[in-house]
Each structure stands twice: as C-alpha cells, then as structure tokens.
C-alpha cells in the first residue's frame, strides 16, 4: 500500500498552505523589519561625480543612507566571480554599490534604510547623483567591434573566447569536412534577450542577534548554502554563526541561482550595523533592470551535408552578449555550444564563441540556460538541409540520429561541469515516431491543403533536443526516524515550486516502507543541512532524490540490524511495510519503526513510556558490548551524498501546428505536442506540470517576450505592460506523451525534467511559421509586425 509511491501521481503536500494563504514568501516575513530601497543608475554608462544626500535627510522615518564609500573592507570588494574558467580571461563583477562607474541602467548606487518601503523610496527619490555620461555600448555586434569599451581594461569588450572542435571519425576537421561536402549552406541566426521573471522578485531579510552574535538571513534564493558561505566570508563571521533559509520561493527559473546579490551582502551588513532587522523586497521595476537576463546571441552557421541529409561538417560561430558583468562565468555559451548537437551524430564539429560585454543587465542562466539558442541553431540547420534537398524535415533528423545501440555516446566535447559530454541513454527514433503520431505529422499536408482552400494558412514544425541534467558536484540527504515514528528528511538544495517536498517524500516513503504522511521534508534551510550546491540545471530530483534514497537505504539497513537483534531474526528475513518491521512469513513477529528508533538511541533518562525501553535498566542490551558499538552512532538516522561521475541526458521532441493570418500577420498556435523522456518518472503529474510551464515560457520566448534596449542602453519595456509574459489567452493546450529510458548512472534511473519544456519551443515555432509562410525565419522571437515586415521584404 505504502511502498509503491515512487512513480505515482501523488498530490502535492505543498499545496495546502499555498492555497490557504499560509505560504511564507520572503516579504511575508519580518513584519517589523526596516525596509531598504536603492538609488539605481538611470544611465547605462556613467561616471559618478558626486552624490548629494542632503535633501533626503529630512525624510521622516529615514534610518540610514549608504554609498560605496561607507562600506567596510570585504563588503566593499567586487562580488565574487562564481565560476572561473580558463577561457574567461577578462571576467568582471560589480561592486555591491557602484564605485565611481555605473555600467548598466539599474546598477545600485546608494542604499537607503527607512521605517518602511514608502519612506525609503521617498528618501531615495531625494538623493541627487551627479553623473558624467559616458558612451554606452549596446548591441552585440557593435560591442564586438570594440570602438567603445564597457570596462576600460577589457579590449574589444571580449570577456571570453572558446573554441571546441571534434574531428570526424576519419580525423577530418570541421572546416575541411564542410568544404568537402556535396552540399554547403551558410547563414546567420539571431536570438533575442528574455529573462526568468518569476512572479516573486528577489528579496533578503536579515536578523542579527547581537547577544549571541548570530545572523539569520532569509533569501529568495536557489542556493541557501552558498549564500551562507558568501555572507560569512563577506561579513567576516564564523560559518556556524550564520544561517540562511530559503522560505517559500515564488519562482526562480535560474535568476535566483546567482549569488551573492549585492542586496544579499548589504542587507545583513546593515542589520548588523544598525542592530535592527532589515528587509529588502525587490519590486518589479528593479527586477527588470537589476537582476539578470539571458538568451541574446548571434550565430553564424556553415554546414556541409550529403544527398541523404547526413551532416558531414558543422561550423558554428557564436557572439554571446553577457551584459555588463560575468558573475556566473560563461556557463550559458558553453551550454549553447555543447548542447547544440542535440540527438545527432555529426561528422565533424567546430564551435567558437566570443562572450562580449555590453552596457546592459548581466546575463546568467534562465531556464534552458543557453539550450534554446543551441537548439534553435541546430534545428534551423536541419530545416535548411531539408529545404535544400527537398526532403521531409523529420526524415533529415532521423537520418542523423544517434541510435539506441550507440549509448553511451561520447560527443567529444567538454560540458558545463568540466566533464566529457557523454550521453548515457535515450531512444531518439522511438521519440520521433511517437511525436509524429501525436501531432499527426504524416496527415498534415492534407490538413494544410484543405485549410488553404478556405483561405487559411497553416504550418507545422518540429524540434528535438538533448538536455544534460543533474550536473554535479553533489547533493546530500539526511533522514532521521524519531521515536514517534516520524521520518524527517532534509536536503540542502532549495525549492521554487517544483514539488520537492512531495517527490522527496515519495522517495523516502518508498525506500523506507513508511506511509507518506509520516514523512516530512525540509529543503533550503542551512540549519537542517549545510552541504549543498543548489537548484538549477534540472538537477534537484536527480541529485537530492538519489542522495535521499541512499540515505534512506542506510537508515533502512540500520533499522533492520536493530530490529533483527530485537526480534532475534536474520536481517535478511525482514521487511518494512507501513512503518512496521516484520519477519517475512511470520506475521506475529514485528516491531514498529518507532520502537526501532527508540532502541537505536541508548538512554539514561526516560521522558516517556516508550523511551523507558531504551534506558539502562530495561534489560535489553547485551552486557558484553558497549551501548553504542564501535562504528555505530546513536539514533536511527542516515546521511548520504550522491555525486555522479557526469550528467545524465534527458531528451525530447516537440511539434506545433500554427496558423498565420494572411492579413493581420497574427500568429496562433493551434496545437502543441511534446514527447518527453526524463528516464523513470517519480511523479508524472509533477513532470507534466513542469513541461506545461516550460512550454509556456517557450511560447513567451518565441512570440512575445524580449528585452528591448535602445541605443542609450535604456530598457524600454521594463514593466509587465510591455514585457509581454503570456496570459492563459496566449498559451495553447499542450499534448504530452512520455517515454521512459532509465538512466544507468543513478540508483533511481531518473533524469532531470525542470527545464525541458522551454528548450525547443522557439525552434519549433520558427519551423512552423516558415512552413506556413514559405519564408525563412532567422530570428526569434517573432511578432506579427516582424512577420509582416518579413513578408514585405520577400515582396508579398
């Protein structure tokens, strides 16, 4: 009854508090805290000549105003470069408050603390900053020319340059392979900026206890453990004196993995200095200009192929816009350039990227993290090959697939974790077969012709991807069974709505043989688990899920050992079901797990009847051995870590049917189909929800969302009025089918699912619009206005 919870669409245990208004998000905490607000740069590039705070000093309720000059050692230093890489020769990060120069609109310049946020904003509005405006660097190609510089000591605005090359089996380089191919195409592709835009912005709330010199910080973060280490280091506090908790988090999608944000350092620092609780809850406008964006790239492609559509050589050159700073290194372009290969076996491959500074908001991973751009590149390439050869688009893909017998398949590249890009498992031909059936690929031409006869314009498109998920280095799990029979599970990584409390409880209940109702799960609280990496890269279920399973197995082994002794049975004859240890085939001989927990902890003091069983005169313990035997620990608990040798590779294929209006150029998605393979499903309901949400973000990225900067570096659409996040009216119904190809790399056979939905959507929609219109779609997103202009430039 209780043991087969793994794989079931179990309802979420998070829901009850969230549907009754009892969730606790960052700004729901700290009722009496002082509020922080920031004066942020209105200019993309400027030198600060003077900051005059005098007018603000009269604001009622003002507590403090800080500029960079006011910050002490360490706090005033540039923020850390989180992911160094040898190719990132010119990595640069921001100061927590601008020092002399500002490099994008929104960069924090002055911090204001006041009784409430209204007053803090009043004071901020009265602070006058005198700027000398410098030439802004905007536009990736303009920036790459290097006529003006974002950082004076970074020539050409070039932060990083990386080449990876995989020769063909015959040892031919990509360039040579392309030259020698029967057919060669070259073209340019563009992908515009978007952003995670969770509905809850960032936020930090700090409580300093001056009496015991301890700091508790709540942050709306995807990594509480690492925020903790950063804060301890910046503030010079011993690590054990700092605790960081991620409360309920209102969405992350990547942006909240970046840390420490300036505010994550400044708010705790101010709380210590002022000996008052301080809170900062980011508002929507701040989020647009002071968090992070992603996606912007220009790609140049050269591909050589044969008459059957086999890709013999592929050369891709990428210009990646990483904004003003590089705190997260070059993870995004690394992922683009490696995951671009998708489910395909490519003859020879060469990829080169230049990561470029511009006077815009910094670029860090957003759900998909460089993959949407890579998949766009590869899938547009497949469509071009099909068009050139007059072949069916699905057939060209099939011709290039890695086959089920080819795994493990080494793509010969170095992935984002610094490890070889080796696919562990997959079944791409079956995936494609399922997708074609789901969308009705073969019947579409008839449908299209019939619609055309009635003046309607339909098109179909498809796209395939492979996603490296569950990257290391590790996650851990701790499982404790207490003497009341309750199971307490904790893991260090954080949750932003993925249902971790539910799926980790499913795993623990299944592994331990206890009812789910006796399992509680805590994530992202360093008081409970101090070692973790974070939630990103579709890794939580794979990493923490497996770690928790391993920890449960330790606990189970220990429980069976203790119970075996008590029941005078062989541990191998025992099973745990519904929270009770039984001797298989002997229904009378059993011991509740609660009692096992009591026995696991030899006691001197009894605090209740049950505990009395474990005290020294209860007469249970053998007298010839110490109460806690060598190599053992008191308590029925276990801790374990999962650290994979490399990532596990999920995959999927999407298809869409779109309709374009011949007159208004409006674009409507009529059907959207997904075939998804993330190995074994822990909770299919939750996986499906992740896919829906990902696709919706993909639709946003394909048709609606972009960050529009003008030549002065002003973000013109920094509001939900003009950044067009889709409503229910814009997102199509999504049809899904699952394929389960287990991962051989981890005990549970699972792969990550969090990001998948978003990855191929732009490629799919571009393919479908191209099919409907007979025009080539080279840049995404595409609006009706842009489709109209495309038609015009094609002379229609």
């Amino acid at each position: 009854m209780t043991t087969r919870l793994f794989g079931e669409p179990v309802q979420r245990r998070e829901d009850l508090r969230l549907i009754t208004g009892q969730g606790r998000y960052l700004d729901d905490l700290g009722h009496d805290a002082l509020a922080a607000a920031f004066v942020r740069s209105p200019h993309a590039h400027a030198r600060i000549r003077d900051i005059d705070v005098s007018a603000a000093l009269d604001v009622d309720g003002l507590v403090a105003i800080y500029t960079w000059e006011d910050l002490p050692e360490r706090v005033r230093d540039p923020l850390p470069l989180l992911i160094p890489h040898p190719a990132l020769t010119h990595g640069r990060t921001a100061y927590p408050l601008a020092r002399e120069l500002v490099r994008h609109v929104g960069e924090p310049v002055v911090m204001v603390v006041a009784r409430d946020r209204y007053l803090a904003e009043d004071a901020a509005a009265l602070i006058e900053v005198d700027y000398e405006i410098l030439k802004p660097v905007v536009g990736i190609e303009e920036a790459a020319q290097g006529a003006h510089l974002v950082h004076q000591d970074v020539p050409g605005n070039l932060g990083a340059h990386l080449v990876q090359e995989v020769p063909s089996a015959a040892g031919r380089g990509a360039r040579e392979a392309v030259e020698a191919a029967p057919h060669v195409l070259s073209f340019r592709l563009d992908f515009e900026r978007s952003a995670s835009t969770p509905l809850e912005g960032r936020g930090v709330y700090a409580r300093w206890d001056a009496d015991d010199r301890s700091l508790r910080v709540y942050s709306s973060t995807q990594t509480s453990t690492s925020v903790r280490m950063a804060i301890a280091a910046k503030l010079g506090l011993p690590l054990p004196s700092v605790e960081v908790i991620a409360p309920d988090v209102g969405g992350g999608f990547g942006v909240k993995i970046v840390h420490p944000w300036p505010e994550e350092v400044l708010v705790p620092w101010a709380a210590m200095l002022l000996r008052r609780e301080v809170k900062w809850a980011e508002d929507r406008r701040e989020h647009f200009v002071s968090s992070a964006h992603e996606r912007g790239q220009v790609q140049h492609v050269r591909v050589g192929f044969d008459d059957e559509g086999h890709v013999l050589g592929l050369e891709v050159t990428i210009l990646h816009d990483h904004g003003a700073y590089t705190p997260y290194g070059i993870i995004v372009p690394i992922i683009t350039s490696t995951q671009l290969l998708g489910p395909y076996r490519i003859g020879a491959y060469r990829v080169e990227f230049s990561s470029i500074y511009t006077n815009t908001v910094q670029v860090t991973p957003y759900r998909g993290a460089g993959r949407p751009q890579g998949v766009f590149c590869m899938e547009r390439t497949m469509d071009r090959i099909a068009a050139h050869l007059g072949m069916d688009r699905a057939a060209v893909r099939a011709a290039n697939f890695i086959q089920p017998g080819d795994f493990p398949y080494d793509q010969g590249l170095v992935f984002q974790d610094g490890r070889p890009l080796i696919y562990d498992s997959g079944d791409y031909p079956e995936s494609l077969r399922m997708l074609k059936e789901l969308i009705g690929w073969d019947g579409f031409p008839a449908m299209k012709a019939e619609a055309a006869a009635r003046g309607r314009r339909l098109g179909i498109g498809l796209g395939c991807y492979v996603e490296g998920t569950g990257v290391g280095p590790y996650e851990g799990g701790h499982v404790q069974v207490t003497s009341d029979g309750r199971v307490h599970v904790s893991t260090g990584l954080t949750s932003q709505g993925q249902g971790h409390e539910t799926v980790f409880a499913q795993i623990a209940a299944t592994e331990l043989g206890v009812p789910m109702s006796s399992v509680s799960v805590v994530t992202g609280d360093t008081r409970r688990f101090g070692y973790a990496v974070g939630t990103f890269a579709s890794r939580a279920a794979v990493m923490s899920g497996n770690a928790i399973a391993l920890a449960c197995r330790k606990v189970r082994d220990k429980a069976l050992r203790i119970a075996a002794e008590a029941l005078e049975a062989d541990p191998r004859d025992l099973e745990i079901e519904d929270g009770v240890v039984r001797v298989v085939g002997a229904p009378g001989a059993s011991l509740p797990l609660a009692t096992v927990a009591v026995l696991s902890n030899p006691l001197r003091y009894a605090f209740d009847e049950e505990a009395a069983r474990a005290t020294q005169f209860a007469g249970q313990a053998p007298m010839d051995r110490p109460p806690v035997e060598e190599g053992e620990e008191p308590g029925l608990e276990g801790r374990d870590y999962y650290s994979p040798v490399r990532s596990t590779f999920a995959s999927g294929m999407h298809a869409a049917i779109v309709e374009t209006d011949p007159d208004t150029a409006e674009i409507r998605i009529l059907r959207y189909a997904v075939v998804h393979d993330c190995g074994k499903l822990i909770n299919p309901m939750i996986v499906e929800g992740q896919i829906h949400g990902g696709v919706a973000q993909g639709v946003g990225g394909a048709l609606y969302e972009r960050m529009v900067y003008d030549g002065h570096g002003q973000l013109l659409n920094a509001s939900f009025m003009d950044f067009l996040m889709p409503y229910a009216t814009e997102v199509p119904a999504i049809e899904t089918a699952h394929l389960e190809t287990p991962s051989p790399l981890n005990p549970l056979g699972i792969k990550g699912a969090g990001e998948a939905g978003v990855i191929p959507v732009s490629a799919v929609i571009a393919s479908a619009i191209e099919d409907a219109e007979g025009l080539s779609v080279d840049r995404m997103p595409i609006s009706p206005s842009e489709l109209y202009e495309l038609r015009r430039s094609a002379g229609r």
Partner: protein
Amino acid sequence: MGEALHEIALTVNGVVRRARVPARRLLSDCLRHDLGLTGTHVGCEHGVCGCCTVLMDGAPARSCLTFAVTADGHEITTVEGLAGPDGALSPVQRAFSECHALQCGFCTPGFLCTVTALLRETPAPTDEQVVEGISGNLCRCTGYQNIVKAVHRAAELIADEDGTPAAAGGEA
C-alpha cells in the same frame, strides 16, 4: 513631520478590521503588513500580474491598484477567507490542488479569488469563458493548462455540493 493618518475600517473575511494608514497606503500593503494577511501577494504593483487580486464587495479587484482609504467601509475577501469557518477548503481550493494547478504558489491566491468570483457568476463556464475569466492573471509556472482544468473541476465540485447538476455543459 509625519504623514496624515486616516482611520479606516474594512470588513475582511467577515471580520471588521481597523487600521490607521497614510492615504497612499495601497490596499495590498494594508492587508499584508497592517492586517497580517500575507496570503495576498504583490507581483508587479502596476496591475498587470493579478497576484494581488482580492474580492472587493464580492468582485475581483487589484489590491495594488486600490488605496486602503478608498476601501474604507467595504467588504474584502482574501485568500485566507476562502475556506469555510471550519477550515474546510472551498471547492476552488480543492480543485486547484487536485488538478496540480499551482507550482510555486505565488500567483495562486489571485487566481483563487478571481476564479471564486468567476464561478459565482458563471457556474458552468465554457473553455472560452474560463480562459477569458482568468486572462488578467499571470502564472509563470504552470502554463495555465491545469488552472483551466481546475476551474472546470471546481465548477463540478460546486454543482455536486449544491446538489444541482452543472447547468450548461454536459452532465453525467
């Protein structure tokens, strides 16, 4: 010099609540920070996202686009007031959980309030009416599909509770 404060009395979830607020205090902040009802969330403060939607005299309204002083004397229902007095979840709440219509849960209170009013007015909505009805609320997690499903499911649950067959649409 402090700002002038205004005495207001709101009936929130059936209980008269008093507060002294500056005129510029947004209803969303008053509910959250003066009255401690933090279930109403704030996602944009310019009226686009719908996270802050509450029922004002029974009709959904953006609490970030309403001053607390304007709401003086009015009845407000927040997400905290949707369950019955005994804590029994409302059909809309149950349906959202059953259909996995929430992930991070930040937008959920706004949806729950909006949908509660929608189903009062349109007890058996078509797909189109559901989508139109929730069209002013943003969700970044779910892709809306399960929310639409939950609205239909809630309509069923309400009809079952009332003992009346769902008016339009099909019935078993």
